């Protein structure tokens, strides 16, 4: 494919009201050679993305890496957010992002310390790519690379939309290997691409191949025979 994945710099926006968890997440992503911006609330996340007017701050609370005037120029390849936060929950934030025309294609991952199936389902149905139980580990973060790669490749996004539509109409959806069994309109990234990406990653001995089912706390449906076009 000719893509030098090792040179791609991904920018992650991490949202969590816990200082300890922000520090952890930041370290996890920096270990994976990602640039990280952390904020402590959903509102600040929206401000950073330029989706919300900030009444009290004439300048954004966290420096925009590119341009202070035009926040829309921020490129974010992944948003990872805690679910339980005072004020705006991670779910509320997810909804706002999916409602935005500029940012709806950014993969959103939800983290939570609580394993509540209805909560997990609701988030996945609203468009979250993954739902991680805390504490989040390096192996979780490694799973996110394919999602971030998607945002760098526009034609991939187009074809994903087409396959997604077909999924929603198809009744023959493979059973989910997890506690939840509701069909999710998401496709698998091509395993060949994954292997290519894996080659560029250093410390990958703990990474599971995409062929294996997810560990019980991950809720990622498997559709046999479907790959991204």
């Amino acid at each position, binding site marked *: 494919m000719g893509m030098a994945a090792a040179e791609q710099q991904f920018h992650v926006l991490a949202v969590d009201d*816990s*200082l*300890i*968890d922000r*520090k*952890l997440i930041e*370290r*996890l992503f920096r*270990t994976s050679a990602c640039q990280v911006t952390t904020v402590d609330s959903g509102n600040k996340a929206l401000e950073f993305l330029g989706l919300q007017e900030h009444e009290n701050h004439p300048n954004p609370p966290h420096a925009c890496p590119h341009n202070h005037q035009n926040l829309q120029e921020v490129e974010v390849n992944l948003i990872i957010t805690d679910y*339980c936060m005072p004020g705006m929950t991670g779910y509320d934030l997810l909804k706002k992002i999916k409602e935005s025309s500029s940012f709806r294609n950014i993969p959103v991952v939800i983290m939570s*310390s609580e394993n509540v199936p209805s909560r997990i389902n609701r988030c996945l149905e609203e468009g979250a790519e993954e739902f991680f139980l*805390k*504490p989040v*580990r*390096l192996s979780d973060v490694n799973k996110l690379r394919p999602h971030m790669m998607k945002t760098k490749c526009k034609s991939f996004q187009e074809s994903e939309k087409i396959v997604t539509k077909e999924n929603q109409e198809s009744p023959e959806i493979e059973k989910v290997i997890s506690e939840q069994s509701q069909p999710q309109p998401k496709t698998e990234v091509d395993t060949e691409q994954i292997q290519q990406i894996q080659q560029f990653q250093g410390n990958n001995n703990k990474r599971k191949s995409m062929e294996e089912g997810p560990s019980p706390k991950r809720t990622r449906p498997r559709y046999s025979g479907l790959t991204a076009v």
Partner: protein
Amino acid sequence: MEVGQLQRSFIEYMSSLFNEGFLDAQFSQLQQLQDESNPDFVVEVVSLFFEDSERLLNDLTMALDQPNVDFKQVDAHVHQLKGSSSSVGAQRVKNCCVPFRSVCEEKNTEACLRCLQQIKQEYLLVKNKLQTLFELEQQIVAAGGAIPMMQ
């Protein structure tokens, strides 16, 4: 003490912390995230945990001391404490939070106070243990040795 002895003490001590359930796999994860570019990562995170916990334990003490206890607030504090102890791998502290939340839901002040007492004890224990561990690390480094990596 020579480096080899210090390192052996360190390994023994660390193992006991895991075996006795003070620390769980998450602490190992923290250690794995530490490297030459972030040599103090574990100490930094644990320090945040100490600050956070002490604040929360104070808040809990005050909250349960009120004539009309705001159990929602108490639960929120315990939830936070559970989260941070889980994130650093302080297993026994984390485990204390579970029954605490149950009695909170039942609005049982007496039981909450007992849980708080237990959490305080567990917290002080793990704080003491971690500080001892960090001191051992410092001694090893001062003696010119490398801190052993635990599997």
